[in-house]
């Protein structure tokens, strides 16, 4: 029987060895980041809310910020036998309102800043990004099924699409945007 989905709430990081289904419900500007080590069969998902942690960070809130989430996420995966050099990543989210009144929303664009921060921190840790789907004005629900490797995105407007398959060599799915 398939494992019940693990709901990854805001600021949470969940990891598992073997079959698991992770889901982030209703992502707006937040990011749903999935990591997978194929050899160790260890995977996880994080629900990142903001780009940068404050100087004084409550350790229980490490998953909330892009720059503090990744080290914590890697630590949890490594505890289950994963090795950072083998880890593949996929992420989505980072939506935003379609327009800012002044037209200069860069600081206010939390979705765009989240996406940029996740990209930077993954690069900093030299992790391979298989696929991403960020931006736009739609909320997303993401479901990552480790057994099949499929990272699936659901939106109200466009229905479902498979962003990538992290198990099959991390191939990007052909229809992914």
């Amino acid at each position, binding site marked *: 029987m398939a494992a019940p989905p693990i709901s990854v709430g805001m600021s949470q990081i969940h990891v598992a060895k073997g079959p698991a289904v992770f889901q982030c419900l209703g992502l707006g500007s937040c990011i749903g980041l999935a990591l997978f080590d194929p050899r160790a069969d260890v995977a996880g998902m994080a629900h990142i*809310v903001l780009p940068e942690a404050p100087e004084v960070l409550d350790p229980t809130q490490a998953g909330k910020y892009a720059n503090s989430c990744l080290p914590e996420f890697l630590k949890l995966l490594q505890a289950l036998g994963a090795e950072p050099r083998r880890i593949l990543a996929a992420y989505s989210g980072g939506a935003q309102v379609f327009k800012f009144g002044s037209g200069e929303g860069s*600081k206010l664009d939390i979705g765009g800043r989240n996406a940029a921060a996740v990209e930077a921190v993954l690069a900093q840790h030299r992790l391979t990004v298989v696929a991403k789907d960020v931006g736009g004005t739609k909320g997303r629900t993401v479901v990552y099924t480790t057994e099949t490797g499929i990272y699936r995105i659901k939106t109200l407007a466009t229905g479902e699409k498979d962003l990538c398959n992290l198990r099959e060599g991390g191939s990007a799915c052909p229809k992914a945007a």
Partner: protein
Amino acid sequence: MSESRLTVESLVSSISDLPSLPQAALRVIELTDNSASTALTIASVLAQDQALAVKVLRLANSAYYGLSRKVSTLQDAVVVLGMRTVRNLALVASSYPWMVKPVAGYDLGPKQLFCHSFGVATGAQLVARYCRFANPDEAFTAGLMCDIGKIAMSSCLEGSVHRIVEAAQNFCLSFDLAERQLFGFDHAEVGEYLARSWNFPAQAIEAIRYHHAPQTIQKWNPIVDCVHVGDYLTSIMGFGLGADGMQYIFDDSTLERLSMKAEDLDQVVNEFVEQYEAYERNFEELQAA
């Protein structure tokens, strides 16, 4: 197009199951705006509706408010929590049954309108507390009701909302502007109409009417700006997003008017998420009440 002949009034009168508030809640709204009202008058009005009174007492005693002793009477609840907080408890308890229903026209599933409205209320209250220009409980009331117009507008959009959203995206329009172009009015105007029929406080009516366009109001009402920011925070956090998603404009001049900087927003988001989760647990108890 036939829709162009619609008016807010004709639309509202054509809907058979419009949202409504119990008499006791409407009377409490009226009384809390009257300086002559006392804890006893508010309590005695609430006591006339036993079901509502039980829910209000239950919420008042929930962990969220962290009261050191159990509040056993309605009058006690009003004295300890304040009239406006009790009013908000009564409003949440009264609107919950219809806010958790799906709103098909906007592709909002069960509970999503409540999640969104409750988020806006929490966000508006937080912003009011942060900037100190508006009464936080007044901001909560206005935020909670800002999208009630969607319930009546739903019938206009059913089956076509995704095409309207696509057209709005193609023509670079906000969703509320697309509604106005198609029907001659938007969900905020319908909400204003309903709130007037309930004799809502004037500031809350303005906030419902202008929550997507705070820059168009003639005389500054800080509650309008608080609700606009609350709506923005709720949307970017993805709480109760429908088909219209984030196809709205965030008017960043609101921040200036509230003496907030763009940099403050991350901190507000932080607190917002924590407060929303704490509140949510509290109001989940409504289901059991």
